[in-house]
């Protein structure tokens, strides 16, 4: 079984949880005897996973004047469009890498028009060491490219679409170009199922389906409603809608997200399958950090400072915590468009001296934050899954999460509150800070709990789905 997978990022070069999820999934799928052909907008070097081929879309030539309508519209694709237009840049056993360059990011709706530097990199340790070794690894990979296939150029073709590399008016244009690349790739490779991760790749998935006639799985890691509340970007929403409608099977990362696809996108419940995310086991590193620089009651918010993550509820709860525990301190690790509003509210409540902003963090700095935190709070307004609480637990930090998060479904031992109930949230924070026995029990039980939350079980469920689709044309 071979799966053509459209992703947006892949470790080590990632912007957030999507890349981590794709990494975990592809690795575990290899144990299920699944080969993956993984397409990303841009390969940065250093990407690798068992039985996974990477395709660098930057190197896939597409027609300059080409339109995606013939791929994503309902009409059949004529043979002339199935051209031999790809370039396999790396071939490693059964692994190929294809890349599509783009400035898109799955974490923002395009209407914000912000630069990608505003998106933080907090989910995966990207050390400078990893980057340093990249060229070396590239060389090693290149040695294996003896079977590299040649590009066959046609006259009406340009080498590749020059993506802007930033957010802007070209955003949707880039998504459409990615779909063109998807069609080109689909016409050239053998595979059994198409699997597209999040909205930027849905059009590519649809195009690939039209070209190949293979079943399409769209994997919903987040929806526009999670990212933007009710102020959805209509164009992004339309692409999501089209992707879910044209898919043979919709996979969501939680029941919470399934409910959104059913209620907000009117997708038939039977067509939606829940596959919870896993977490890659990590042996807790030795305590590398000195005592916290501020106080000894540290409450941590780690995540993008956007509507979705509920930062303002955290602030309101903090005021109530400080009224009871005046020496509590709050560390805010992350950045985002709500940071100014958050800071102003904190100042208004006269808590500036108790709030500490780290900016966005990666790698060792995240470990430092975990090692000084007494409790991690994720008051997300709508969180499809939420990997950060699992990482906190891996680091031995007890967590408080909102009921409106997918991760709550797999964590019976976390404290759960409604994001809007800042009173309850404050009470929970105070309890964990005050009662060491509670804090220790939570941390210990959750640590046991997350041993069961693996990518292997996610991959098993996906494999079943693939077989159901290819053998019975059923999403089950």
């Amino acid at each position: 079984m071979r799966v053509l997978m459209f992703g947006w990022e892949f470790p080590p070069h990632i912007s957030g949880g999507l890349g981590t999820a794709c990494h975990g999934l592809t690795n575990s799928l290899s144990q299920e005897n699944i080969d993956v052909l993984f397409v990303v907008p841009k390969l940065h070097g250093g990407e690798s996973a068992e039985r996974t081929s990477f395709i660098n879309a930057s190197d896939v030539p597409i027609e300059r004047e080409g339109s995606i309508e013939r791929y994503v519209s309902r009409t059949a694709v004529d043979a002339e469009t199935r051209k031999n237009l790809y370039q396999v840049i790396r071939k490693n056993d059964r692994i190929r890498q294809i890349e599509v360059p783009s400035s898109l990011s799955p974490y923002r709706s395009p209407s914000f028009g912000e630069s990608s530097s505003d998106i933080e990199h907090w989910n995966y340790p990207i050390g400078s060491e990893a980057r340093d070794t990249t060229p070396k690894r590239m060389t090693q990979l290149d040695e294996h490219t003896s079977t590299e296939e040649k590009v066959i150029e046609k006259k009406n073709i340009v080498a590749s679409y020059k993506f802007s590399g930033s957010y802007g008016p070209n955003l949707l244009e880039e998504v459409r170009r990615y779909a063109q690349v998807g069609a080109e790739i689909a016409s050239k490779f053998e595979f059994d199922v198409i699997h597209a991760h999040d909205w930027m790749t849905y059009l590519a998935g649809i195009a690939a389906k039209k070209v190949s006639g293979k079943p399409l799985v769209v994997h919903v890691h987040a929806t526009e409603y999670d990212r933007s509340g009710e102020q959805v970007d209509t164009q992004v929403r339309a692409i999501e809608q089209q992707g879910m409608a044209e898919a043979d099977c919709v996979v969501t990362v939680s029941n919470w997200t399934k409910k959104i696809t059913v209620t907000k996108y009117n997708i038939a419940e039977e067509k939606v399958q829940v596959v919870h995310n896993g977490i890659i086991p990590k042996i807790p590193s030795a305590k590398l950090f000195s005592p916290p620089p501020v106080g000894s009651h540290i409450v941590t918010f780690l995540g993008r400072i956007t509507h979705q993550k509920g930062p303002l509820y955290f602030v309101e709860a903090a005021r109530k915590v400080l009224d009871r525990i005046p020496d509590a301190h709050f560390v805010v690790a992350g950045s985002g468009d709500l940071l100014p509003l958050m800071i102003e509210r904190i100042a208004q409540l006269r808590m500036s001296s108790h709030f500490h902003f780290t900016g966005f963090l990666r790698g060792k700095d995240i470990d430092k934050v975990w090692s000084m935190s007494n409790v991690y709070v994720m008051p997300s307004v709508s969180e499809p899954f939420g990997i950060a609480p699992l990482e906190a637990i891996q680091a031995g930090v007890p967590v408080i999460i909102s009921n409106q998060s997918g991760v709550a479904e797999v964590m019976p031992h976390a404290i759960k509150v409604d994001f809007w109930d800042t009173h309850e949230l404050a009470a929970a924070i105070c309890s964990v800070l005050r009662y060491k026995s509670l804090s220790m029990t939570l941390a210990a039980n959750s640590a046991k709990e997350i041993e069961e939350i693996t990518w292997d079980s996610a991959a098993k469920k996906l494999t079943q789905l693939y077989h159901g689709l290819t053998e019975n044309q059923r999403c089950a």
Partner: protein
Amino acid sequence: MDLLKTNAAPKKNLVLYFQVHQPKRLSNLRFFDIGASHPVYYNDMDREIIERVSHENYLPTNKLLLKLIKKNPEIRLSFSLSGVIMEQLERYAPEVLLSFRQLAETGAVEFLSETYYHSLACMLPGKEFEIQVLKHAEKLYQHFGVRPSVFRNTELIYNDEIGKKISRLGYLGVITDGVERVLQGRTPNHVFQHPEQENLKILLRNYRLSDDIAFRFSSEGKILTSDKYLSWLNGLPSHEEVITLGMDYETFGEHQKKETGIFKFLEEILTKLAKSNTFQLMTPSQAVIATKAQSILNVPYFISWADQERDLSAWLGNEMQRDAFDTLQALEFDVKNTNDPAILETWRNLQTSDHLYYMSTKKGGDGTVHNYFSPYPSPYEAFINYMNVLTDFTMRVKIAKAGNTVFHDTHPAKAEVERQVQAVGTRMTMLSTH
């Protein structure tokens, strides 16, 4: 000749003052650096700025002024140098201090009083304000051998209360901004008097004529000529007898670059004013001594020369600024109890108005000016960094305080023993006498 002069209309007085100030900039303190004994100040940046501004502005302008004063002994002008810039000049550009000293020695230049730290100390309770004013006066004396007699507060912040404090320190005059809402229809071009302190005269900066040079000297490709400017001055009504102009000294060569012709303008206007039959250049103290107050100026609320509002909103206009300043203020007691001069010094440097100015979230023209001066990409970064520095500083204060507490804890015990010994001794004495 003499007869002719006495018959002519009295000359108008023109007071000119230049503000010379650069803050001691704070180091970029990341959250993880808190408590790691990082330096408080970003000395490299200070050095770089002082060296650049000295080269482009302070040295050439001082040189020009010295030349002009030698040529035209009628020239009078004044400077206000903050304590923190004098400190930085000592370290990074002593030749600038030397050139100011040469200007001082001409006798044509007066130095004004201000708070040493160019601070918002006037907002603090107690004697902090007076301490910083006197510390500044000491520094002036140390460098220029003069004692100031006219005061101007940080960014011309002023109200009746500040006037009272200044008068009690013995100052004869104070300069603030000619803000319409306190003038209530009157012209700023007079000498005013404090409502209670009869001996305190007030000079009001004519901000329109000042900003014509400071902000509007070159705009949209056009530059202001000395003739044009002189014609504006000549157009003022004859009964308006004192015109006060004040601006950043950095106007000459830094805000307005050399290429705009700002130095030529300065040379021409000073030469023309020195030779003028209608104007007489005066230092602020000459003006307050020689001129009678025309009316009383009531200033019940804070005014300043900053932004459109000309109030405190440039520094304490938003919640971040107020919370940061409140947090700093709340440390006063602990800071002073440490008896640690370095800690006290840092606390006072953190009061420098610039740090709060960078946190302003004003938009439009004022916002542009705030951004121009700020070393931070946004007010939020300025705020976060300031709070990180303040948190780090708070820890130092706590440690120093704990050190003192240990000392006091052992001390009373010892004292108690001694007291008992003494008591026993006294009883014994009493016993023996009876």
